[in-house]
């Protein structure tokens, strides 16, 4: 077993060195040393557990190599490329009004869409889990449609629907509500894209929620609202949080569906991914990577905050 792991690790490290990614080989070395320490502890007789499916060494080695190749390598490339700009160059790119505005638009619209999905995703999940009705399978399939549909198709459909002459747009425009080619349009597109994330994360948790807890609350004199707020919602919060985070992250990176409906006016309805494309089209590779690196940072911070929140909730609920 140990042989397998070392081979996997070594081959990964060698490949990385050949590619000139010294840091990657180094990371593998660290992983191997950590692993070696655990093994020593095993041999010391402290933790010996029989594994039904052996191959920890091999699988860990493969996992690390694979994640390194697929996830870390491109991201590291991005950071290193952006680093060529130097700190002040990087700062100059990302603090231009246009870039700042794009970030503001991207974050606020993604946040708004994720919040809308939080409410309506919970509603959809609730209906799908708690009731049996004709056409349920169809509704269930509809939820997955935003996953499957090419996002550009969704974008074109939405902009046709919400433009001043579209079915919905022709009703809203006389009321003074412009959806297409405004940030509101971006929210609509991102809501469409993000819905399945909330529904599909909340659904299984809702299914596991024993109805007796609700009955217990009712028999203790709680009203329906109290039962929902105090018993059901707290049990769903971790799942809601995960769904929200997924929808939000997806919204931040969404490109295809947004560009058709957004209007893409600089500093008003221009999103960050589009700005990156624009920079690339102008052969401003450094500008593009700088914005990309900032987005990467933003994603990391988001992931970190979400994980922190979940850890905190888990500790609190002690499941």
């Amino acid at each position: 077993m140990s042989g397998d792991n070392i081979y996997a690790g070594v081959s990964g490290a060698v490949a990385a060195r050949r590619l000139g990614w010294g840091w990657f080989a180094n990371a593998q070395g660290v992983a191997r040393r950590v692993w070696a320490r655990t093994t020593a502890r095993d041999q010391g007789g402290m933790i010996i557990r029989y594994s039904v499916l052996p191959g920890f060494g091999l699988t860990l080695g493969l996992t690390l190599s694979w994640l390194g190749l697929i996830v870390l390598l491109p991201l590291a490339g991005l950071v290193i490329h952006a680093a060529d700009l130097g700190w002040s160059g990087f700062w100059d790119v990302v603090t231009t009004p246009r870039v700042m505005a794009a970030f503001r638009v991207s974050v606020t619209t993604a946040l708004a869409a994720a919040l809308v999905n939080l409410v309506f995703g919970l509603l959809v999940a609730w209906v799908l889990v708690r009731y049996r009705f004709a056409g349920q399978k169809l509704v269930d399939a509809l939820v997955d449609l935003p996953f499957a549909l090419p996002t550009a198709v969704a974008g074109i459909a939405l902009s046709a629907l919400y433009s001043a002459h579209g079915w919905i747009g022709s009703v809203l425009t006389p009321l003074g509500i412009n959806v297409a080619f405004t940030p509101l349009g971006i929210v609509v597109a991102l809501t469409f894209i993000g819905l399945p994330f909330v529904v599909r994360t909340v659904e299984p948790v809702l299914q596991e929620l024993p109805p007796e807890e609700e009955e217990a609350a009712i028999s203790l004199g709680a009203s329906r609202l109290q039962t929902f707020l105090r018993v059901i919602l707290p049990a769903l919060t971790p799942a809601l949080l995960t769904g929200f985070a997924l929808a939000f992250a997806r919204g931040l990176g969404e490109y295809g569906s947004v560009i058709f409906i957004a209007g893409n006016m600089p500093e008003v309805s221009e999103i960050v991914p589009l700005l990156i494309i624009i920079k690339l089209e102008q052969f401003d590779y450094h500008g593009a990577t700088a914005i990309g690196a900032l987005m990467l940072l933003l994603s990391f911070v988001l992931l970190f905050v979400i994980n922190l929140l979940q850890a905190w909730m888990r500790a609190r609920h002690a499941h």
Partner: protein
Amino acid sequence: MTIRVSGICKRFGSFVALDRVDLEIRTGELLALLGPSGSGKTTLLRILGGLERPDQGSLTFFGEAALGLTPRDRQVGFVFQHYSLFRHMTVFNNVAFGLDVLARKDRPSRAAITEKVTELLRMVQLEPLADRYPSQLSGGQRQRVALARALAIEPRVLLLDEPFGALDAKVRKELRRWLRRLHDEMHITSVFVTHDQEEALELADRVVVMNRGRIEQVGIPSQVYNDPASPFVYDFLGNVNRFDCVIEAGVARIAGLEMAFPAVGMTAGPAVAFFRPHDIELTRLEAFAKEEAVSAEGASRAQVRHIYAIGPSARIELDCAGHSVEVVMDQDRLRGLGVNGGDWCGVKLGRGRLFRAGVVAATSIDQR
């Protein structure tokens, strides 16, 4: 009279859960609803608690029509089979829940709630665990939290659904005694559902035996045990030997055995006789040892299949002309008889009860 149930019917699809059930529950008593699964006992309890609505019938609580009342207005405490504690709340908050959700004008002050919850936790001996979460408790502790939570709202009636069902034997016994003591102190009208006859007989003031959505018998434990009203109750309460008989001219004969007893006043036809294991006598007869006679001196020939001798009494499994017969007797008496596994001996049916099949008719048998 605390609760009166009359003519309650409940169906789930084509399944009849309750079929015209009438029952009176007395103030301060501890009542057991006993029956096999599917007998409707839990449905009846849920109807009492307002968690289920009957299709027909009426229900009064303290003289007041209760079917239209919400669980809150009925003032019942419900303890669920799997405790159903709120997983994301501490023990303390679980117990305080019923007080926390009261309308502001009825809600006691924070300090009063704290005092009350602490007192309840002390009563169920869980005060040190107030800050724990349900997942950090054992089954018995969770059950006590559930009980404290139900008692916090000062219910007029306490309803318990299989309160000890999910616990291991030792904890179950302890908790059973503890609940009995608690009831004796508080005198709160309580109804509990169980499928364990020993639990019902040991704990309850009165036992309601249910079968297929109907009540078979209501009575104090010794009454339902000693004078079962139907073959079902006999079968369900405790171990019993069951013999199919045929009644002919006022005499019942057990099919395949040379045994008969009087069935005065009963019409001819098939019947069932029941004998408790301790009402059957074992004799050691020379005639049987020689494998000649099938019956002699009022006893039938039987072979000892197995002896389970643990504790003060021994359980003997016999083969009596193809019938499996179970006998319970003192260890000392068994030793005196000198019967061992594989031996032949005599079986004498003592006290029992005869039920005419398909008709509500029964007669006692006493051949001692």
